[in-house]
């Protein structure tokens, strides 16, 4: 462990005092932030040379960002337990036998959730709820089943205080899935996030229409291209956190992101970017991630001591890590400007082609980098189009087209997206607010999803332009809760604050309505 300066200690102590005195943080939010400050004093990772000037600099020059994971990772960032095993066998550590009816199943899950760690300290994956609950759904009558599911979802919304928490349903329609959609349509909750794994021919249209109606009320579920995900990650994958495709019974050790727009600022020309600056930063970020992964596996003790591992709900061999990026649009636009060209990403063919060329460089690099302890993904990290942070300014999420610059026609928008979704098995996605009041036509959305998934788009979200629950970048918040926080009141869920930041800095309320 390396020494740090007293100046840094005192700065941290001031930050700690600010957290303790904060009028807008709940007790739980204070504890999380206090732990983050304590961790920030640690210096234990074997950091690659050159990292400091890419990571620990002003936000407008930062090229690599570790997304608040801390200096000494105490657990993997994202954990996706095998809840089916828990339903079948119970859990010795939690002293819970296997459930025998719907009451016990829901109660057991709620207990389990409180013991699944993550970077947010809340479970980022709460299970494939339809498959988990279907065996128990007929142990009570339908009215009771719906009431129990309703109470269960309210419990999750009020105790999993972070919408980077994700439930999955589909692709096959089930009674449990239908009831969950009905409940979610009525509740209009921000937590948990919900994804329906969709496969044409497997997921029936009437089930999809129910899901779309739900999405236009409560901004969820989102829709994942099941065929595409299973071809990359096998059937045993989950969608967790924002929209992250990860191995079931494992997860992601870490997620770092490249800020491509800032890397472009370092380059003299397109050629300089492609041949010098980008490869330089790629190499340092990969080695930084290697160091984080090694610490978790070799030193933290997590994989030796945690009950999730000991009882086989997760296995070290099922973990990988996410090689993230933001700001492809910012990067392309800046590089073109540096060369005196006027094209814009999302609109001009040569700008989009430059985007593809950059993605190919990143993809090739990742496929040649030997990542430690990532057997499940072939010894390499998985690319991830990161959605951004609340404090990001002038940073466009992943490979999205910036808000305010969306093509006039949705077809032109989609035809840009389908060149980029394929690169990201660990997640990417695009979001479309829909003018529901005019449309009254959920099949319109269904046709777009079918077409998109035939064209190898990976993940799509829709919400009604006038609903209270809205999708910020990947996660959900309630507009009404943001307004409360903005007026100086404390709010229950951590992500409300992030949403408020994103609405001010990221213009998420100004997306083009379709």
């Amino acid at each position, binding site marked *: 462990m390396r020494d740090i300066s007293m100046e840094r200690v005192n700065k941290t102590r001031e930050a700690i005092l600010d957290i303790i005195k904060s009028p807008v943080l709940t007790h739980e939010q204070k504890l999380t932030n206090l732990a983050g400050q304590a961790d920030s004093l640690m210096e234990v990772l074997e950091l690659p040379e050159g990292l400091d000037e890419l990571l620990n600099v002003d936000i407008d020059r930062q090229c690599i960002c570790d997304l608040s994971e801390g200096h000494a990772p105490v657990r993997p960032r994202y954990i996706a337990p095998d809840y089916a095993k828990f339903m079948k066998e119970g859990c010795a550590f939690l002293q819970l036998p296997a459930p025998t009816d719907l009451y016990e199943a829901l109660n057991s899950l709620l207990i389990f959730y409180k013991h699944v760690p993550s970077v947010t300290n809340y479970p980022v994956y709460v299970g494939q709820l339809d498959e988990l609950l279907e065996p128990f759904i007929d142990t009570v009558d339908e009215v009771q089943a719906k009431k129990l599911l309703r109470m269960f979802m309210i419990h999750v919304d009020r105790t999993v205080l972070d919408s980077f928490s994700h439930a999955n349903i589909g692709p096959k329609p089930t009674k449990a899935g239908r009831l969950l959609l009905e409940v979610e349509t009525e509740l209009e909750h921000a937590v948990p996030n919900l994804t329906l794994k969709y496969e044409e021919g497997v997921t029936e249209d009437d089930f999809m229409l129910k899901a779309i109606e739900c999405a236009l009320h409560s901004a969820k579920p989102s829709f994942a291209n099941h065929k595409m995900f299973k071809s990359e990650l096998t059937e045993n994958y989950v969608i967790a956190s924002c929209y992250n495709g990860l191995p079931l019974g494992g997860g992601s050790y870490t997620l770092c992101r490249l800020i491509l727009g800032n890397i472009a600022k370092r380059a003299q020309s397109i050629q300089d970017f492609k041949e010098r600056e980008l490869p330089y930063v790629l190499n340092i970020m990969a080695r930084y991630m290697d160091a984080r992964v090694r610490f978790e596996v070799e030193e933290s003790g997590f994989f030796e001591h945690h009950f999730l591992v000991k009882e086989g709900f997760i296995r070290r061999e099922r973990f990988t890590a996410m090689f993230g990026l933001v700001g492809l649009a910012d990067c392309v636009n800046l590089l073109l400007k540096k060369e005196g060209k006027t094209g814009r990403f999302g609109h001009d063919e040569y700008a989009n082609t430059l985007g593809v060329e950059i993605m190919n460089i990143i993809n090739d690099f990742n496929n040649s980098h030997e990542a430690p302890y990532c057997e499940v993904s072939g010894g390499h990290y998985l690319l991830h189009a990161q959605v951004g942070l609340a404090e990001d300014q002038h940073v466009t999420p992943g490979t999205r087209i910036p808000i305010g610059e969306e093509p006039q026609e*949705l077809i032109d928008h989609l035809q840009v997206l389908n060149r980029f979704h394929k690169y990201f098995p660990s997640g990417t996605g695009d979001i479309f607010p829909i003018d529901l009041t005019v449309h009254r*036509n959920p*099949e319109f959305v269904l*046709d*777009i999803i079918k077409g998109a998934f035939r064209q190898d788009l990976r993940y799509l979200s829709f919400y009604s332009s006038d609903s209270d629950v809205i999708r910020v970048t990947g996660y959900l918040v309630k507009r009404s809760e943001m307004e409360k926080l903005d007026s100086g009141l404390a709010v229950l869920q951590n992500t409300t604050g992030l949403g408020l930041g994103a609405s001010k800095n990221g213009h998420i309320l100004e997306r083009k309505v379709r």
Partner: protein
Amino acid sequence: MGPVKAVVNKIIPFSSVDGPGNRTAVFLQGCNIDCKYCHNPETRGMCKNCGLCVEKCPKGALSLEQGRVCFDSGKCVQCDTCIHICPHDSSPRTEELTPEEVSARVRKQIPYIRGISVSGGECMLQPEFLTALFSLVRAEGLTTLIDSNGTIPFWEYPELMEVTDGVMLDIKAFDCREHRHVTGAGNETVLANALWLAEHKKLYEVRAVIVPGLYDTENSIRQIGAYLAPCLAVSPFRVKLIAYRPMGVRREYADQKVPDQEYLNHLAEILRSYGFSEILII
């Protein structure tokens, strides 16, 4: 004989309001009636190349070349000055296209769309064009719908009907005199079309624009219900009640009353009492 061309006002790549699912909507120029509440009056007339719009265009997107108005889409900012000042209810932004050219623009939306809908203006003024276009897009696996004011008899175009999946038919008033008051034309053919289309299972949707005060809307809906209820047994179709909104309507007609939700629900109830189940209010 050259190819049948049509003057196309615009093509909307993704439309959610012109039939089931997602469809490309094609609007043809030219109409044979004159609805007081017309929401897109710039589709009514043909361009006379008078050049008035050329002078008024703030962006210089229009020019007069060899007596014809030419349009540069790259300079257009969609301010709509040209269509607002046009004395002929027309638009300089139209294009003359063959069925092949329109079909090529539709193809771009595959596989995101399930079909196309052609509207206007009144698209039934150009039945040969429709027949050719529909044959082309059907070969691509798309469905075909016509949006019509019903004043042209469908039974006279069996070849077109052969390649048409359905018709969305306006009944702008049931009473003939009221129809004439609203549109300037009688509705004998409209009502005959409704029965003929229903009988031949080509009636996808009946539409009524609800403008209280302009005509007796409640009575009209009641009579439509009674007249068409027997057809439901042949093949089901839906009814769309469209609330009048002043957007796009010519200034001299734009002060009609907008119906409230309660009244629209009341009209839907009337239709339900006649056995209609699929009623859409927009």
